[in-house]
């Protein structure tokens, strides 16, 4: 079956991408599979300057999920361009940069720097930083900020497509989706992690030094599917589904509600060859369930009248 997908300025050989922060800069997984087999690789979130990230402990297991508060530890955009990008097989697999900043201007600068990089197929905008100036609410929870940041990135991104990554920690995700569309986003990716917490009754401390952390993994799949469903109905730009995908069936669920592609996050930790295998399994399962084509299947969910 033809597994190619083109949407929002991206052309992928299949709909399987790896999610930011769960696949490093790609090379970490090279011993376990052929990187060029993937539809796309979204690399670890990067900021203008290097960041050391949050104190330890940063991760904890939860029922069918995990919490993380890495705090966007990264070597900074310049080091990424100098060291990581050249060794990635970007001619054969779409490499998407994940941008992290704490104001619209900084986002613009990041976009400006990356716009000139041939090896970058698209920019994904991570709006999860709490906006200190605006009272500490995260950008991603404020539609006005989402729109502003998207505009800032779009303005500097040149011909690079811009994908805005939405947070599920909002009252109405469709408002955020519309804000990003209005700001000029070429596509949306969702969901980022759910805000969560874990504590240890023995030492009476939070299990994560940052106290509040992001919940990911199969536990959140129902929330992610609901968000993707709502957003697909609300906006005209394409959507990439993320959240708890741990099998080909999970991936097809997101495509069934209308996602053009998916990103695999936490499941990369189940085994490092997970995403590579998923590429084959997805095609096989599509055939098994008698879908005529990927396009035919996409968004073909029958809703009750």
């Amino acid at each position, binding site marked *: 079956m033809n597994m190619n997908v083109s949407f929002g300025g991206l052309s992928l050989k299949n709909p399987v991408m790896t999610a930011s*922060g*769960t*696949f*490093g800069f790609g090379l*970490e*997984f090279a*011993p*376990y599979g052929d990187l060029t087999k993937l539809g796309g690789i979204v690399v*670890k979130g990067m900021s203008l300057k290097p960041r*050391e*990230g949050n104190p*330890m*402990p*940063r*991760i904890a*297991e939860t*029922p*069918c*999920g*995990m919490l*993380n508060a*890495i705090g966007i*530890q990264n070597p900074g955009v310049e080091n990424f361009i100098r060291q990581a990008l050249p060794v990635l097989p970007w001619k054969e697999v779409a490499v998407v940069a994940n941008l992290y900043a704490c104001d619209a201007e900084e986002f613009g600068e990041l976009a400006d720097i990356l716009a000139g990089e041939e090896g970058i197929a698209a920019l994904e905008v991570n709006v999860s930083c709490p906006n200190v100036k605006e009272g500490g609410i995260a950008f991603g929870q404020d539609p006005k900020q989402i729109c502003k940041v998207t505009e800032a990135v779009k303005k500097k991104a040149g011909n690079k497509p811009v994908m805005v990554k939405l947070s599920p920690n909002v009252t109405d995700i469709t408002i955020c989706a519309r804000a990003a569309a209005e700001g000029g986003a070429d596509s949306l990716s969702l969901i980022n992690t759910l805000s969560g917490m874990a504590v240890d009754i023995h030492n009476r401390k939070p299990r994560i030094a940052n106290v509040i952390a992001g919940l990911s*993994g*199969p536990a959140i799949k129902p929330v992610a599917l609901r968000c993707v469903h709502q957003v697909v109905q609300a906006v005209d730009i394409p959507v990439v589904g993320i959240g708890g995908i*741990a099998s080909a069936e999970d991936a097809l669920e997101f495509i069934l509600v209308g996602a053009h592609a998916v990103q695999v996050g*936490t499941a*990369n*930790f*189940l*085994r*490092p*060859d997970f995403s590579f295998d998923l590429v084959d399994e997805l095609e096989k399962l599509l055939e098994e369930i008698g879908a005529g084509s990927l396009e035919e299947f996409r968004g073909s969910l029958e809703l009750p009248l």
Partner: protein
Amino acid sequence: MSLRNCRNVKVLEVSPVGQLKRPDEFFEIKLEYPDWDGWKPGQFVMIRPAGWELDLLWARPFSICSADGDTLTLFVQKVGRGTGRIVALKPGDTVSIWGPLGNSFAMEPEIPTLLLAGGIGIAPFCGYVEQHPHPENLRLFLAHRLSLDCYPFAALSERVEGVCMRDDQPEDLQKIIAVMKEQIVEYAAKDGLILSCGPTPFMKTVQRFAAECGVRAQVSLENRMACGVGACLGCVTKDGSGHHVQVCTRGPVFWADKVEL
């Protein structure tokens, strides 16, 4: 053959080790050997039983004890849900395994080398002793909480000089620390090398005495891990200059003066 890979292998054997105070705490696990080109003592593997489905998500890291072309041997202490379910595996069960991961202990065959193990921290030294060309230059010190036959100490002390002390009574800990200091002073005097693996307080003690005596020492860390391949940044520690580095790829072994514990 392959330098490093992820495979499904079968469990060959799971056997409890020793006369136990807390029953069923220590186990030797034998797995089919994944087709690796080789491995070095101090390296580890990530193990995830196929039967876990979606609850527990993460694989668990274990030091490679020994491995030949047929069998990979691990030494596992049951401490929680994950290890509890791993030691309950039966021959024929399937596990995903990836490795060999991480760096390894320094090996300087001609240099007098002191191996300091705290409890289950003895595991990586099994392979170290086996692969060392001059075991007569090695001394193994084990601080143990359970009875000695829970640990692979007897087998090791056939090949190398072995010293062990039990941490049983409240006053034992101070005695152990005193002996550790003595030994570190001794190896500092002969310009030796110190390798250690054990719980964090144990490693901190090693780090402190090694710094005081100016002797070269390595510590092996056991931070909680999700990916094992350097991608998630969940396992980091601070290196000598205060930067966060992945224990799974930049460790698990660190020079004691180049890591914050």
